[in-house]
């Protein structure tokens, strides 16, 4: 009885939460049950629930495929580079901008540096195309003018490894530095002045005051990004290289592979097995990263 009374008292609040609950069920929980299709031989004529269970067959196929290890490696290596390089560049940028005393200039730089973040990957792919298009691209034209050898940019995977890293940094570093810059702006300047009076150089101040102060934000960012380490940025890897098959050795990551095997090959078994693995590993990674952080410094864990 008491329970019902309590529900009644908070009825209005519970009703408010209803739309989000419905959205989360449709977008989150139902697909979560959908993970079971990784263990099924999906046959639409029998329906999703009625399809036969086949145990780990899909996973056997997945790991037997020659591509999968290469694609997993691609995904993880790219993400590790994105995370480490991205954080180093964003922190460095924030420290630099923070040292620029002319506020107007600093603000202007910041505005220009975050422009790429607001462009969709489709627009980014146009920009990349404008530079690299074999027909009219700026760089091929420049190479021709300078008498440099002709390169077909959209068919050489080796060129795309550094290129993709560069594009990712270009589109995200400015925006990611904002959070570090905001943290720096909120810091107590008297610490630095005291350090300076004690004879600390700028480098020492950065090493012993600034970086330790950014540690919390850096740790949280790191944990959040570790969970996504086996998620490929679909827009970056699919759209920017224009899904060019010759570039697959360098551009294929789990997400593009899953999309292709599902929509072009119609291979539900394989794609759902890969998706399942991605979800499970992603979850383990976030929890593990959080545990490690908790072990080192319990204040900085997220949950």
């Amino acid at each position, binding site marked *: 009885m008491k329970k019902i009374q309590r529900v009644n008292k908070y009825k209005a609040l519970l009703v408010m939460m209803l739309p989000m609950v419905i959205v989360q069920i449709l977008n989150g929980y139902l697909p979560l049950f959908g993970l079971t299709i990784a263990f099924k031989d999906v046959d639409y004529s029998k329906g*999703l629930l009625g399809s036969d269970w086949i145990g780990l067959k899909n996973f056997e196929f997945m790991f037997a495929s020659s591509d999968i290890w290469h694609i997993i490696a691609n995904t993880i290596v790219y993400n590790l580079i994105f995370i480490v390089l991205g954080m180093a560049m964003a922190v460095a940028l924030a420290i630099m901008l923070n040292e620029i005393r002319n506020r107007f200039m600093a603000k202007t730089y910041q505005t220009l540096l975050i422009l790429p973040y607001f462009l969709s990957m489709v627009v980014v792919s146009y920009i990349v195309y404008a530079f690299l298009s074999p027909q009219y691209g700026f760089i091929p034209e420049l190479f021709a003018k300078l008498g440099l050898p002709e390169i077909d940019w959209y068919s050489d995977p080796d060129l795309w490894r550094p290129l993709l890293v560069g594009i990712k940094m270009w589109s995200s570093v400015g925006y990611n530095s904002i959070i570090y810059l905001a943290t720096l702006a909120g810091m107590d300047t008297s610490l630095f002045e005291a350090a300076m009076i004690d004879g600390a150089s700028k480098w020492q101040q950065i090493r012993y005051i600034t970086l330790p102060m950014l540690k919390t934000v850096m740790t949280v960012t790191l944990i959040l990004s570790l969970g996504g380490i086996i998620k490929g940025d679909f827009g970056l890897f699919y759209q920017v290289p224009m899904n060019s098959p010759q570039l697959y050795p360098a551009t294929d990551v789990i997400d593009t592979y899953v999309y292709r095997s599902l929509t072009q090959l119609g291979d539900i078994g394989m794609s759902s097995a890969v998706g399942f693995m991605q979800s499970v590993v992603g979850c383990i990674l976030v929890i593990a990263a959080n545990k490690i952080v908790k072990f080192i410094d319990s204040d900085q864990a997220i949950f």
Partner: protein
Amino acid sequence: MKKKREINSVSARTSVVLHIIAIIGSLLCVLPFLLVIAISLTGEESIMKNGYQFIPSTFSLEGYKYIFKSGEMLFRAYANTILVTVVGTVAGTLIVALYAYPLSRPDFPYKKFFTTFILILMLFNGGFVASYILNVRILMLKNTFFALVLPSLGGGFYVFVTRTFFQQSIPYEIIESAKIDGCSESRIFLKMIIPLSLPVLAVNGLINIYGFWNNWQNCLYYITDDKLFTLQYVMQQALRDMQLMKNLAASGSAELQLSNITLPAESARMAMVIVGIGPIVAVYPFIQKYFVKGLTVGAIKG
């Protein structure tokens, strides 16, 4: 007399170096975008002869004229994008606020359950295949307007950002006193909570606007009916298929179809990109401070 330097600032020489690095960085971020603008303003023959150049050898507005004359498809895509952005932003911002508000109330007894409800999905998700099959086979979203909105709704992260904002900026006492005065929960939310939390709602709204405006994946996954194409998707298709630019003419005026030979397809395509991102890039410098605010509010863990 030389202006006295602020205490503990870097030396004049270092300062110059910093400015130079920052200027190079800023140019690197902006110039590539300017190339697209330059191409959109270049005459077609000049592109054929010299390729894409930063400084057009012949200046021409033909590309823009072409896309404005090129008929329904592009206008419909523009209208679709605006509609998706408006509906998605209002719905997305509202449901997050409605969910976050009870979580912020100290007297709400089911906090733990509803927090976990969201947290689980932040850790674990069904992934693309399961969502795709669900949306297409069971919810029958293929080629419906909902497919452009629903999959992008409900970011769990923003629930916690918004809840933290409510907790910190709206004292429970004023809610309690309103209740004692006989105010209903829905009235409290509409008349007190919303007006008091405009900053965080603005941040969530802006993030949604950018998310929906720039989204092309939903259209790629779920839409094959060209009446529902969004701008980003039309752009995405046009990059891979120049024919699409020419087909646009087919839906346009007869005059355009006849002048097929002098089609400014190259510049028109880039003009389409500029027109497509126009509103977003034009306003972001003025609202970036809200993004900064959004990011720093988000840094407060809950």
